[in-house]
C-alpha cells in the first residue's frame, strides 16, 4: 500500500468479453498515489492492455470500482472529457496522425481547451523542445525516426497537462538506444512534473525506472504487496 494520497483506487475490477467466455480481469484491486510511477508487467494475455483501457476510460464496461482523481469511471457519461482533462496516453505504435506535422500532432488534444491557435502552437512548441525535438517541429511523422515519433507522442500526451500518464509498451517498437532516450524523457517528466505514471511493459529495464511494479497473470495481480 502506498503512503501517498491515492490518485487511483481500483477495487475488485472485473472485465470479461464474449458473454463472460473470456475473463480478462478477475478481481483486481490496488491503489496508486499521486506522483507515483508504477509499471504493470505480465505475459501476453494477462490483462495488461485491458487494465490500461479501463484506467484510461477507453473502456467503461467493467464490474467493480475504479476511481481516478475522485471520479468513478464506470458508466462515465463523457469519458472523452475525462480523458482530455486527466489522462495522457503514450502508445507502443505511437498513433500519430500521419498527415499532420509534429507540432500539429501535439496540438490535437488542445482543441478541447479554450486556448487560441497561437497559444496552442506556443505550448506545443515548448513541449517539443522539452523532448528535444525543437528542430523537427514541422516534420511529418514519416520523416521522423521511431524514437522521434515516440517523443512527439510523449509531448502530445502532456498537451493538456494531465494528472496521469498511461504508457503502453512505450519502448516496444524501438531499438535499445532510442528506448533508452525515451526512458530518460519519461523519468524526467515524472520527476519534474510530479506526474503519476503507469507504464505497461514486458521490459524489466523499463519496469526498473518506476517506483513499483504490479504483476498481472491470468487477469489477477500477483503478490500481496501489490494489492489494495
Amino acid at each position, binding site marked *: 500500500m502506498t503512503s501517498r494520497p491515492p490518485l487511483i483506487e481500483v477495487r475488485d475490477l472485473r472485465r470479461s468479453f464474449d458473454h463472460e467466455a473470456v475473463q480478462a480481469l478477475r478481481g483486481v484491486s490496488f491503489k496508486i498515489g499521486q506522483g507515483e510511477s508504477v509499471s504493470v508487467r505480465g505475459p501476453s494475455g494477462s490483462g495488461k492492455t485491458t487494465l490500461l483501457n479501463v484506467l*484510461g476510460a*477507453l473502456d467503461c464496461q467493467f464490474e467493480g470500482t475504479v476511481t481516478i482523481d475522485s471520479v468513478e469511471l464506470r458508466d462515465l457519461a463523457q469519458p472523452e472529457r475525462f480523458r*482530455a482533462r486527466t489522462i495522457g*496516453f503514450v502508445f507502443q505504435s505511437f*498513433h500519430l496522425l500521419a498527415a499532420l506535422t509534429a507540432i500539429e500532432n501535439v496540438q490535437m488534444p488542445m482543441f478541447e481547451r479554450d486556448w487560441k491557435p497561437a497559444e496552442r502552437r506556443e505550448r506545443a512548441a515548448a513541449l517539443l523542445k522539452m523532448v528535444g525535438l525543437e528542430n523537427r517541429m514541422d516534420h511529418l511523422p514519416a520523416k521522423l525516426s521511431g524514437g522521434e515519433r515516440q517523443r512527439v507522442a510523449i509531448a502530445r500526451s502532456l498537451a493538456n497537462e494531465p494528472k496521469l500518464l498511461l504508457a503502453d509498451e512505450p519502448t516496444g517498437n524501438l531499438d535499445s538506444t532510442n528506448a533508452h532516450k525515451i526512458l530518460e524523457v519519461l523519468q524526467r517528466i515524472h520527476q519534474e512534473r510530479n506526474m503519476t505514471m503507469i507504464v505497461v511493459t514486458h521490459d524489466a529495464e523499463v519496469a526498473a525506472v518506476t517506483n513499483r511494479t504490479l504483476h498481472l497473470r491470468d487477469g489477477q495481480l500477483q503478490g500481496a504487496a501489490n494489492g489494495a
Partner: protein
Amino acid sequence: MSFLQLILKNLLRRRSRSLLTLAGIAIGIGAVVSLSGIASGFERSWANVYKARGTDLVITKTIARSTMPGPFPATLKSEIQKLPHVREVGGLLSDVFSVEDSPTVLVIGWEPKTSLWKHVTLGSGRWPDDSSTDTVAIGSLSAEMLNKKLGDKIQIETREFTVCGIFRSAALAESGAIVMPLPAMQSLTEKDGMVNFFDVWLEPRTTPAQTDELRALIKTKFSGLTAFDPGAVSESNLAMQIAKAMTWAVSSIALVVGAIGVMNTILMSVFERLHEIGILLAIGWRRARIMQMILAESLLLGLIGGILGCGLGVAAARLLERSPWVAGKLEASVDPALFGIALLIAIALGGLGGLYPAWIGSRMSPARALRQ
C-alpha cells in the same frame, strides 16, 4: 493550428476525391442556376414585351394545349372594346416557326392601326402596308441571327416574304421576332379571322380594383378566355410551365447525384480514418467535436462546390442563351437571390451528405479503432 485549417488539411489530403466531389456539386448547382436563370429569363423577357407595349391586360385562352395559346375569333374585339375602362384593344396572332437556319423564330401578326405598332422604333426601311401579304419587318436581333437586310427574301413555312423594315424593341423577345400585319399572319397560318391574344390598354385613371372587376367580367362574359396581368401571361404559358417542370426535374436529379457524391466522399474518408478518429477520441476529443469535424468538411465541400456551381451556372446560362433554340427569345436572368438560394442548397447538400458519415465517425469505440 485552427479548426478550419485542420478541416482544409483533411480535404486536401484526398485532393482528387475532393475535386471530383466538388465537380459533382458544382454541376448540380450549375444546373439549378443555369436552368432557373433561363426559365426566369423567359418570364422576364415576356414581361418586358408587355411593359414595352404599355399593355394593361392580355386576353388569351385560359387553357393552352401547345406552346402558343389557341386561336379565337377576332370579332370579339368589338365586344371587349365596349367594356368599362377599356381604351383600346389590339389583336395579335403569333406562332413559332423554323425559319431558314434558325430552328425557332417568333412570328407575330399585329392588327393594323393599333398601338401595337407604336412601341417599336423603325431603324431602317418602312413598315409593311396594312394589306400586304408578302412583306415583313424584322427585329434587329433576328436580322443579325438570320443574316438579313432590307430587300432580302425570307422563307417562312411555304411562303416567301421581303424584308421591308428593320425595327428595334426594348424587349429582347421582340427584337428576335418577325412582324407582319395581322391579315398576312392569318393567311400564313390559315387562321382567317382569328387571333390568339388581345392586348388591352385601359383608361389612364383606372384603379387596380376596377382592373380586377374588369378581369372578372371578361372571364364571366367570354367563356374560355382569361384576362391576365401582363406579368402573369408567361406563367400561364404551357411552354413556360414545361420549362419550369423540366428545370426542377433536372435540378433535383443533379442535386441528388451531388448529395450522394458528398456522402460517398465523406463516408469513404471516415472509413479510411477510423483509426485516426479512434486516436482523436483516445486523446480526449469529444464525440461532438468528431461530428463537427466531419460535418464541417462536408459543409465546406458544399460551400465551395456551390460557389463553383454558381460560376458554372452563369457560364452555362450564357452559352444556352446563345444557342440557336434560345437566341433572340430571352436573356438568362441570374440574380443575387438565385445565387443565395443555390448556395443554401449546396450547403444543405453538404450537410445532408455529411450527416450519416459524421454519425458513424462519432459512434466509434476508441479502443476498437486503436486496435485496427
